[in-house]
């Protein structure tokens, strides 16, 4: 008994060499599962873009010369940039207002922001179809107010894509920014004000620089997620709003697998480049933890 008492905690200290085997055995099943059903399929697909019909770079080179593909990538970047700016402009003041409140107020309001976050993207996109459609809520309301005679065409335009995507991605901007703002030592802005800084000066010289890691993390997350958006542009966008993900699906449907793979490789490459940039700037693990230290 007395031997057992002392043995257990000491054992891990005495034999650290064998311990990692146990940890590897714990991680092993998930790693094996994800390699078999996720990583290998994705890598095999990426290889397809250079290995079919024979070893060639034609599929990847086609990306640069194919007018449609270039145009679609351009639209994708434009959409991602507009949505990122919109979420930042709308979301930063929200995170700021939340951070100024007491926890008793901020926590329930945060739940109201998280709820849409967990609601199905399909449901949220459908809601925007209902709101923006020809006989949708917005058009009926404007007509009832006498502001328009004919229903406006909003659904199936780029504007609808921007609005719906901003709605869906806004929490990704607000949450990391909020959590970084919370960590800022509140005596700093007070000291700045005490030293004669105007409220605007305090915001520009204290709050903004100190909250930048969170805001930048949120913005990068929104940008990366926007690049791969599929459901929303497909349902509320028009034919001229085709984004890369849709083009990939279309190419798969046309059984043009090597070209679909090349497009995927390009989309993945761009995504990883943005992530690498974030990693250099802020550290990726921190971004994925929502900007917290």
């Amino acid at each position, binding site marked *: *008994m007395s031997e057992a*008492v002392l043995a*257990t*905690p000491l054992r891990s200290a005495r034999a650290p060499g064998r*311990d*990692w085997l146990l*940890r590897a055995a*714990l*991680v092993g*099943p*998930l*790693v094996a*599962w*994800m390699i078999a*059903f*996720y*990583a290998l*399929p*994705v890598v*095999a*697909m990426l290889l397809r873009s250079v290995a079919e019909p024979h070893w060639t770079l034609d599929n990847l080179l086609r990306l640069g010369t194919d007018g449609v593909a270039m145009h679609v990538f351009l639209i994708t970047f434009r959409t991602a940039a507009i949505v990122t700016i919109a979420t930042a402009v709308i*979301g930063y*003041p*929200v995170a*700021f207002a*939340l951070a*100024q409140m007491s926890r008793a107020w901020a926590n329930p309001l945060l739940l109201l922001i998280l*709820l849409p976050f*967990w*609601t*199905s*993207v*399909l*449901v*949220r996109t*459908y*809601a925007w*179809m*209902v709101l923006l459609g020809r*006989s*949708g*809520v917005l058009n009926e309301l404007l007509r009832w107010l006498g502001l328009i005679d004919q229903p406006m065409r909003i659904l199936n335009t780029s504007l609808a894509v921007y609005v719906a995507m901003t*709605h869906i991605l*806004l*929490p990704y901007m607000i949450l990391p920014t909020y959590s970084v703002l919370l960590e800022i030592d509140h005596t700093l802005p007070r000291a700045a004000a005490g030293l004669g800084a105007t*409220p605007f000066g305090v915001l520009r010289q204290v709050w903004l620089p100190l909250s930048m890691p969170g805001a930048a993390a949120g913005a990068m997350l929104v940008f990366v997620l926007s690049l*791969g958006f*599929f459901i929303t542009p497909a*349902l509320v966008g028009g034919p001229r709003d085709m984004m890369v*993900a849709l083009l*990939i*699906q279309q190419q*798969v449907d046309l059984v043009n697998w090597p070209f679909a*793979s090349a497009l*995927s490789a390009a*989309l*993945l490459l761009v*995504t990883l480049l943005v*992530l690498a940039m974030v990693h250099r700037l802020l550290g990726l693990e921190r971004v*994925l933890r929502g900007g917290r230290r």
Partner: protein
Amino acid sequence: MRQARIVHTLLRVWLGLVILFLLLPILVVVPLSLSSASYLRFPPPGWSLRWYVSYFTREAWTSATWLSLWVGLIVAVLATVLGTLAAFGLTRGRLPLRGLISALIVSPLVIPAIVAAIGIYFAFSRAGITGSAVGLILAHTCLAAPFVVAVVSSSLVVFDRRLEFAAMNLGAGPWATFWQVTFPLIRPAVLAGAFFAFITSFDELIVALFVSGSTAITLPRRMWDELRFEIDPTIAAVSTLLVALTLALFLASEALRRRGEWLRAER
């Protein structure tokens, strides 16, 4: 000072407006689902429950719902077991190739779903497991497990290991220590992870779009087909039920998280 107060008020008004912007679009599906009209019309000309009846009686909707439910449950169990084990391995000391392993586990959160979906589709169609629940379960587990790893890891990082050492010093073996000390303390995180895993699979469309073929139609896939080709207000009823389900699961996991924090604060 007065200027600061005006800014303060404006910020709160903005906060209120943005929260309305986030919530109202979701709530708009509720009156629509109770409409008596068979087309999109606002405000509804009359009220009825016919779209709920239509949802619960049409085989295309009910079979899709059952498939999504049980695939989601199996995925939740698999992802929770695999993810919790992995979280232990990742947080309890040194591990070779740790960075690589973390990158692999995190990758479904950052790699565009369409890229993963077509990779999985190509591989699974070669293996002949498209159009079946098996394919969906195998793929969805990969997408759901990262959430479990994240939630459980964050509770293990703040876990006080002296409690385990104390249990072992009192003569409990590793097995008894785990089930009587460790697991009860991390249970809220494990259950929250299971909720996230379930919702991830239950809501997943893009992989299902390719893998489910024409024989394993999940609920999101059914909704997608409906939204693309023919919209009748049944989908408003489905959406309302989904919002209610999300709300219930969300509140439950929130209550669990609070309980977890409470347990931690108690120590």
